Structures are given as structure tokens and as C-alpha cells.
């Protein structure tokens, strides 16, 4: 299936898994180069030592030897030759690492929740799966991951991808696979007694198979798109008392056209409003305060919002990326102090006063 790749004999000797992502071939090539150098290097040093031992055998126990000190030029040659080699490896490795760590903009998004001892995947159309991640072949896939309890690590050997999933923060990773098939997901960070059976699989489906899977009505899930769930959660937790979703300025910044935009913060810094920023703003509202807005949010929504709610609200904000805007809808009236004090759902949700966001957003990026 893999078009390019290391010769299979090399992969077999190194016992490498299939090369099922666009990273794998490049990483394996560097891997092979370094490991081959390692083996040649350690063996030659050993052999040189053995050669000297045979060549300069001791003839008498009181034998004297000359005082020989390595000259500086030879030392420098060895030092900078070796260091140069190490730095070349570092440069290539760093380049690849940046590639691994920076997801492309056009990626399909899947939310991942790790907990003892399972993986839960939630797709933008609202369906979710346990321990099985279904993705299309030939597309960039980006995972936004959070943990409900301890640190886990999302590891797909066939993709050469690994990312720690740390509770209290959201991290992203991404991959692109052109090879339909099923590949194991392993948890790589000790997370308790069943760490070794916290396994799952990625199912990479070719175009038609993936469309068929999308068309399936998954039992028990999937009736409401994730953005819709997010809208309900935002109403229920009274986010919308301060944040509008039609572009109007209210107590807090509007959510419309917020996702992926450049936000100016107090103190002159700017950030891109990506998933990490959005989740951080819920977990630690005081961390990044948007310029010209007072920070009246509760200290944290950690206890208030469940992890799926957070993912759903982020997805809802994403769905408003290109939403139509108005400036004259009535704003919900809200006592700021109450919100700041409680951080819990307020009386009647202000939802009915608000314009309904355009439908059909969630699937946008899949088309």
C-alpha cells in the first residue's frame, strides 16, 4: 500500500511497523541512518580497541611506554567532526518535529477524550465512538485531545505519532494517512493498573468506504451535530449571557468569527484563537484577557463544564467562524456580578432572545 518507503528488508531488520502516515517514511529514513551509524560507530571503536590490544601486547610487566599526548588539531577534528554529525541529525530531526507538531489548517477535526482506561472519539457531526477512531484516507486529520483523569499518551506506532494527553489542558496532534487499514492505538504513559490494555485502533477508510461510514446511522449517537450540543451547553451554562454569537459587542467578546482569528490581549500581546486558546479561556479565564473587556468570568469552569461540553462549545465556536453577523439584535440583560459570583447556570437561559445560528455548519470542513 505504501508507495514510497524504506526497503522492506530494512524495515524487517529494524522491526518497524508499517509506514502508514506521511511522516513515517521520512522518520524511518533518518532512523535508519542514525542507527546504522550507531552500530558501525560502536563496533569500530570496539574493534580498534581490540586491534590495539593485539598489536601492542604487553611483553613484560615492567615494560615502559612513551608519553604520547594527542595533538590539539587531531582532537579538534574528532570533536567538531562528531559534533557536526550530531548537529546535522538534530537539524533534520527538528525540521521533522516541527512538521509533526504544527497541524495544517485544512484538517478534519476529531475530539479525543482519554480516561482510565479508554479512548473516546467525538466527531463534528455529533457521533462518537469508543476505542475506534475512523478517519478518511488521503486527508489531514487533526486531533484535539483532553484527559479526564491522569496523563495518558496517544500513540499510533504505524503513524510514528505520539502525544501526551494531559488533564487540565488541551493538546493537538495530527496525521495524514494514505493507506487504508486498521492500526493499533496504544497508551504510552503509565496511567494505572490497566494501562497496558488501554488500546484502540485507527481505521483508515478509502473515499467510498468513508462516505458509507458517514452515512451510517450509528446507534445511540449522532442525532445532534457536536456544534448543536455545544450551543445547548453554552445556553445551559449561561455563556451566552455575555458572549453573543452574531458579532455584537456585549459583556464578553463575541464568538462570531472568533475561531482562528487574531485576538489582541491586555498588555499588547496577540494570540490566535485556536482550540487551545479557547479551552484555556474556559479553564483559566484570567490567563489571557482580551483587550478592552473586563474579566468578569468565574475563576475557572473546571468543575462546571464536563470535558465533552468543552469540546462541544469549542466546536460551536468553530462553527461560527463564517457566520452571518448583525448589530441590532436585542442583547440579553444580565447582572455581571451574579455571573462572576456563581459561575453556575443562571435562571432562565437567554437563548430565545438570540438569533439562531446558521444550520449545517459542522460538516463544512469535511466537504
Amino acid at each position, binding site marked *: 500500500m505504501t508507495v514510497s518507503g524504506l526497503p522492506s528488508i530494512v524495515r524487517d531488520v529494524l522491526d518497524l511497523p508499517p509506514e502508514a502516515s506521511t511522516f513515517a517514511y521520512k522518520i524511518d529514513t533518518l532512523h535508519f541512518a542514525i542507527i546504522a551509524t550507531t552500530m558501525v560507530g560502536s563496533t569500530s571503536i570496539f574493534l580498534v580497541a581490540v586491534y590495539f590490544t593485539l598489536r601492542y601486547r604487553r611483553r613484560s610487566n615492567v615494560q615502559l611506554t612513551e608519553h604520547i599526548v594527542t595533538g590539539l588539531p587531531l582532537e579538534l577534528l574528532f570533536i567538531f567532526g562528531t559534533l557536526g554529525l550530531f548537529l546535522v541529525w538534530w537539524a533534520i530531526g527538528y525540521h521533522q518535529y516541527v512538521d509533526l507538531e504544527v497541524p495544517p489548517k485544512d484538517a478534519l477535526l476529531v475530539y479525543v477524550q482519554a480516561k482510565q482506561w479508554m479512548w473516546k472519539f467525538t466527531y463534528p457531526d455529533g457521533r462518537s465512538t469508543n476505542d475506534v477512531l475512523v478517519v478518511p484516507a488521503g486527508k489531514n486529520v487533526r486531533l484535539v485531545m483532553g484527559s479526564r483523569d491522569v496523563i495518558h*499518551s496517544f500513540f499510533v506506532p504505524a503513524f510514528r505519532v505520539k502525544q501526551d494527553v494531559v488533564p487540565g489542558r488541551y493538546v493537538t496532534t495530527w496525521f495524514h494517512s494514505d493507506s487504508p487499514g486498521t492500526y493499533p492505538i496504544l497508551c504510552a504513559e503509565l496511567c494505572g493498573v490497566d494501562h*497496558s490494555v488501554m488500546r484502540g485502533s485507527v481505521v483508515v477508510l478509502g473515499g467510498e468506504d468513508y462516505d458509507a461510514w458517514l452515512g451510517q446511522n450509528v446507534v445511540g449517537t449522532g442525532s445532534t451535530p457536536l456544534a448543536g450540543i455545544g450551543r445547548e451547553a453554552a445556553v445551559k451554562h449561561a455563556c451566552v449571557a455575555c458572549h453573543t454569537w452574531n458579532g455584537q459587542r456585549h459583556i464578553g467578546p463575541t464568538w462570531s468569527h472568533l475561531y482562528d482569528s487574531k485576538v489582541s490581549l491586555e498588555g499588547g500581546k496577540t494570540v490566535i484563537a485556536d482550540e487551545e486558546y479557547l479551552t484555556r479561556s474556559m479553564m483559566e479565564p484570567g490567563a489571557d484577557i482580551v483587550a478592552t473587556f473586563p474579566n468578569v468570568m468565574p475563576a475557572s469552569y473546571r468543575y462546571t463544564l464536563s470535558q465533552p461540553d468543552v469540546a462541544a462549545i469549542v466546536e460551536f465556536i468553530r462553527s461560527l467562524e463564517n457566520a452571518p453577523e448583525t448589530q441590532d439584535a436585542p442583547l440579553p440583560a444580565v447582572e455581571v456580578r451574579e455571573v462572576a459570583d456563581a459561575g453556575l447556570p443562571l435562571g432562565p437561559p437567554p437563548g430565545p432572545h438570540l438569533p439562531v445560528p446558521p444550520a449545517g455548519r459542522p460538516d463544512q470542513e469535511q466537504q
Partner: protein
Amino acid sequence: MTTAPIAMEPSFVRSERTVASWLLTTDHKRIAVLYFVSVTFFLFLGGLFAMLIRIEHFAPGPTIVDAMTYNRLFTMHGVTMVWLFMIPSIPAVFGNFLLPIMLGAKDVAFPRLNLLSFYIYLLGAIVVMAALFMGSADTGWTFYQPYSAHSPSAVLPTVLGIFILGWSTILTGINFIVTMHTMRAAGLGWMRVPLFAWTMYGVSIIQVLATPVLGLSLSVVFLDRAFDWGLFDPSRGGDPVLYQHLFWFYSHPAVYIMILPAMGVISEVIPTFSRKNPASYKAIVYSTIGIAFVGFLTWGHHMFVSGMSIFDAGAFGILSMMVAIFSAIKTYTWVGTLYRGAILVSTPLVYAFEFLFLFVFGGMTGVAVATMSLDVHWTDTYFVVAHFHFIMVGGTLTAFLAALHYWFPKVTGRMYSEKWGLPAATLVFLGFFGTFFPQFLLGNAGMPRRYYQYPAQYQVLNVVSTVGAFALALGMIITFIYLTEALVRGPRAGNNPWGSRGFEWRTTSPPPTHNFTAEPDFKIGAYDYTVALPGELEEHREAGHA
């Protein structure tokens, strides 16, 4: 017989014979022996845990223990080997014994503090053992938060024990630093000090600077658990990744606490057995200092997938390459030392050669995992397990065994049997390689570490690894037996059986309580094989050689 006046004084072993004279001794040599007995016990205990882990992995599913016990076993294996064996092993045993002698001193700077260090070590060890009987921790030796805050196991006493052990390490470090600065014999300038003493100095600096950070991090783990402080608890605003930074700020330099002394041993063994000066004394000294310094700046390479910023990760990657170069410098120097030497193959040298191969292999795989994109695949897999065992076991343990054989006649006055030493050294090497080389491949294949059950495709390599572990264990047991036998019945070795120029050989073997009976004569350098030692040629002729 130039040694005649010295030989009149009883050796440190025979000077006093009561049990109290051992347990309350302030003689650095006797304290070294006390440490040796303790660390050897813990080496075999840690080895026993390792064997149970390897037997468990004979088959992919449950074999001899349950999942919780398995997690406890690898935790206890790590804790025992790191803090009870490896960190004290070479410094507290050989460093204690040799540092003052190599400097021409009567003892370390603070002999009573030295004894206190030993008893703090013993107390820490007892607390850790108590934790073992209370069910032990199951968090791995890293105690990562927030799992260690919630784990249903005996984290508290384990952490407390390690905290106590840290004090012992710090006190020994201070003692060695002051000894090195103030106790050198008249005329012994810094750049004439034996290389082993230099590495003791480097390691002491790391111990004194890094161990308090470990104590601090473990105290917080302790308080978190005991009083529910939640300092690393994300649901209360804590950051579990901060714990990792603190932990590795100590634990990466700790790697150099474990390997620098090994480098010191090799730097003594190779000149002695090739009767040659080191190819560059300065290169070894400066690279020792370099490791002690740059080793503090590389901890982040343990955390490339923890979500740190790309810039930070890049900086830690490049700094890790810098620290690797110092090890490379040493390696070239050791091999260069052999050039035009007069080389005698014997057990310590064989262990030194094993060290060369395993350390270069392990070190280069360290460079490989510092190459960040590769580390993403390898971190937390068996590749990393294999890598650090190549350094810790392939490096430190072989150097420990080299030291044990090289200085056996120095400490005991008796000689072990080369007939046993050489085959045992070979078996240890083959066993080691058989145990850990397959683990590199397991890591390539993607098997995560700390896996009680593993996918069936990994079984063949696991079985090979387990068989290797049995060979390694057999080699260690054989070594234990023939050395014990030699201790009792070995032939008298004489004062300097290797004909070494090392300063520690300029007194009797075993040395008297105050190390030297006359002012030590260090006029001939510790690596000067261009001239014969006074009396050397006469002794040689008397022994019947031409």
C-alpha cells in the same frame, strides 16, 4: 623491598576487630566496605525484581503476577536500582575508599559526617523496604503527577524513603568537594589529580546542586498526597507538566551521577592495563566538568511529547547533542590511550572494553532519541528502556564490575581468579546484550514500556530478552561466588599487583588505617609509565623474571 617500613602497620581491616569498630567507624575505607555490603544486597534485590518482570513477559498475557503487582515490581526495580544501588554504588564505595588515598590524605574532610551519610542511607533504605512491605508504589520510579496523587498504592513511604536517601547523597557530595579542595597532598596540583578523583569531584557537584530539587519535588508529591494540597492537580489550577520539569531537572543530571563515576573507573583501568598515559588527561578533565555543567540544561528531552513549545523542545534537543559530545571526547581518549601501550588482557580491562562498546552504543542511541522527530516514536517505548539500560547497566554496572576486579586486591590484599573472571565477564556481556538488544527492536516495533500485557506480535523478542536476563543473572551469581571465595582463599596479591602508577597503589594493599605510614611520594605522576617506580625492577627480578 621499598615497602618494608610500611608493611609493619596493620591494615585497616585488621586494626580493630570488634563489630562496633566497623559499625561506628569513621575510617573512610571501612565506611566504603559498609556501603559495598549494602549496595551489593540491593543490586541483587533489584535484580530479583527485574527477573520477575522478565519472567512475567515470557508470554503476552498474565503469567506469574497480576497487573497491580507487575506495576509495583517495575517501580521497586527502578527505585532500588537507581537510589539504593546505582547512585551510591561507585561514589560511596570506590569513591569513599579511594578518593582520600588518591589525594594522599588520611581520610575525607569530615569523617563523622561520612558515617552519618551511611546511616542516613541505611535509614532511607529501611523506609523504602518498609514501603515495599506496605505494598510499594505502582507509579514507576518517576512518580508522575497526577497519577501519583491518586494511585491506590504506598506512594507516601516510598517517596519519604527516597527523600531521606537524598540527604545522604548531598552530604557525601559536600564531603567529597571539601576533601578535593582542602586535602590534596603537598605538591599535588589540580592538574595532577587522578582522573577518578576528578569524576568524583564532578559527580559531587551534581549531587549537591541537583538532589535538593529532587527533595523539593518529592516533598510536594508527599504533601499533595498526605494533605491533599493539589499543587499539581489540574482541577485546582495545578500543572502536572511542571512536576515533570522538576523531576527531570534532577533526574537527568542523576544520569550523570550514575555514569560519571563509571567514566572515572574506565579512565583508571585503561591506563593501568596498557601502561600508558591517557591520550589526553586534559580532555578527560574538561569533558567531566563539561558534562557536570551542560548536563543540567538538557532535562527537557524527556518531555518532547508532553506538549512543550517547539522552541523549547528544539533548544533541549541541541543542548542534548552538546552533552553527548563530551562523552564522545572521552571515548576517543580512552581508545587513543591504548595506542602504543603495553596491553595486558585481564578481567578489569575486558569489562572496560565491554563498557566501551555498550556505552558507545547506548550513548549513540541517546543521540538518536535526542533527535526530536525520532523521539516522538521512541519515547515511552522499550527503545528508551533499552537505551538507558545500555548506559546504566552496560555502562555503570560493567564499570562497577571493572572497578570491583581492579581494586579487589587493593581492598582485600588478595587476588581473584582470572580463570573465573574472564568467562564470567564474557557471560555478563552476552547476557546483557541478549537482554537489552531485543528491547531496542521492541521499541522500534512500538511496544510501550510499563506494559503488563502486550500484543502477541512482541512475544518472540520478549522471550529472547528473558533468556538473556537469565544469562546475565547467572554471570552475576558466578561473579559473586568466585569473588567471595577469593576474599577468603585468594592468593596474596602484593601491594601493587597490576604495576600501576595510580596513587592509590603507592601504599600497602590493604592500606593501613591512616592510608600512608610515611609522607606519600607522588613525584612520579599517576599515569607516568616512562620511568620505573622505585623498586619495581628489583621486585620483578626477585619474582623470577628476566
